[in-house]
């Protein structure tokens, strides 16, 4: 098993993720993640080292809840996203921050902007994504994604009803 990570390969994964989300292929999106994955969006006034176990986040999903989030979002009764919004995930400034050789994991950051358009409004979600990426049977998978928004709050968005 390779302990090597290169940025091209990681960027391909992140660009694929962005595409799947923009295409609303959410079940396929889940397949990019490990079985023990988690997905976080901290509140915007928290320090960088805040943990979801003792601080209030916007989103702190384990794998089970990521699956339920996808199931819910694919329903017509997920009213906030039905009719579906249009989204555009832009991923840039991808950097490998650290290689954790013990866990065969790469710590990766990226600058991101996601636009959500619905009902005549376009709202930008601006921030950095932090990933822990590993290799499962030779295939890159995401073990953790944390979206740190560079906003003073979810204004005017009012919601993170899409996956960032």
């Amino acid at each position, binding site marked *: 098993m390779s302990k090597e990570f290169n940025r091209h390969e990681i960027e391909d994964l992140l660009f694929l993720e962005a595409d799947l989300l923009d295409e609303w292929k959410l079940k396929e999106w889940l397949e990019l993640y490990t079985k023990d994955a988690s997905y976080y969006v901290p509140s*915007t006034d928290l320090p960088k080292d805040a943990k979801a176990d*003792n601080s209030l986040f916007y989103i702190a999903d384990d794998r089970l809840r990521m699956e339920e989030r996808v199931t*819910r979002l694919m329903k017509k009764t997920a009213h906030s996203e039905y009719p579906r919004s249009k989204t555009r995930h832009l991923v840039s400034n991808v950097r490998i921050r650290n290689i954790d050789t013990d866990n065969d994991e790469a710590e990766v950051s990226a600058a991101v902007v996601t636009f959500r358009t619905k009902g005549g409004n376009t709202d930008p979600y601006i921030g950095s994504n932090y990933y822990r990426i590993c290799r499962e049977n030779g295939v890159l998978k995401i073990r953790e994604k944390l979206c740190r928004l560079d906003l003073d709050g979810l204004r005017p968005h009012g919601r993170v009803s899409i996956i960032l």
Partner: protein
Amino acid sequence: MKDQKEYVKIDCDRNTFHVSRSAFVESDVFDREYEKIFDKCWLYLGHESEVKKKGDFVTRTVAKRNIILTRDTKGNLNALLNTCPHRGATVCRESSGNSKNFQCFYHGWVFGCDGKLKNQPGKESYDVEFNNDGSSDLASVPRFDIYAGFCFISFDPDIIPLPEYLAGAKEYLDLIASHSESGMGVVDGSQEYAIRANWKLLVENSIDGYHAVTTHASYLDYLMNTNGGLTDVALEGKSYDLGNGHAVLEYSAPWGRPIAQWVPLFGEEGKKEMQGIYDRLVELHGEDIAHRIANKNRNLLIFPNLVINDIMAVTVRTFYPAEPGYMVVNGWALAPNQESEWARKYRLYNFLEFLGPGGFATPDDVEALESCQTGYRNFKLVEWNDISKGMGLEAPSYDDELQMRVFWSQWDKYMQAGSQIISSL
């Protein structure tokens, strides 16, 4: 005297209650709400746990005013207007922190955390008696008081005392404060968001037991699909008028509550811990109160705009209109000051499942409120909202609309106060 426009129409013979949709869209209603409601009520500022230590402070915007809540070096709490008495600059520009002094960066005036002017550059150029009357200290908000840890302010110096204002809501604040003998505190992290809708739509929505089955169908699906997410406790209860525009629904529900309704998802270890919490509540408060604290859910509105929902977790939420069709919302999680790591983790897990702008329910509420606001574009053609459900019943159910009628009756009373004088001009 001109006829006043009617915003609330009550017909007790036919048991109908209607609210004019113009109340959600007209800019003069928005202006008058600041003058007649937000300037005349007790408003939530923060929780005392947010400024635990001497020198702790948080800054807030309350009804368009910038406020600093501080705990001074004597341990007293202060609500100060965050503007330099000298020339007006914002004195404290951080959202929270700990400091003995606040220095205005414009000309360098220094204030203590009790607001008293301590020093200013070029002091020798001022009269020796300068500020003997305290007029160059940071100004205090006209009224400030605390009930059960909840800090309130009022911009009306003549307002009735806070306990009297809170009326029947005091009992419910006491119940929340009694979740733990360690006291309750705000968890780090606030959910700050906005909704493109009139603020009164969120008042209604926060205490609306009627919308859950349809608006939150996908959340209820999720609970049912999650192995062990639910008990067989029925969703049932009543709503109550608490006086002075405050209202509550109190009901049982099948979801888990960290204090202290166990569901299988919490696991066997959790069951033991929650039984311990429950037993202690019985020791402290007796079986009846312990049962209410542990097993009943409460959606509480304190007029005009404080919502404390003690449901699958405890959330405190307040919101102000920036314009008729746009509100700014701040939400926090409240939790026992001392609880196990396990309990805190499950509490927050439970919170995020339903509550807040990333949860499985709140985004759909936001969508519903925004769709109402959009619908009100037709307000001249379809003028009235109907909130008659349960009217005339002796004991309205949690999913009736009594609590909204309580709010709107009080809203109308405040909005009409002094209106005869205005209209006769």
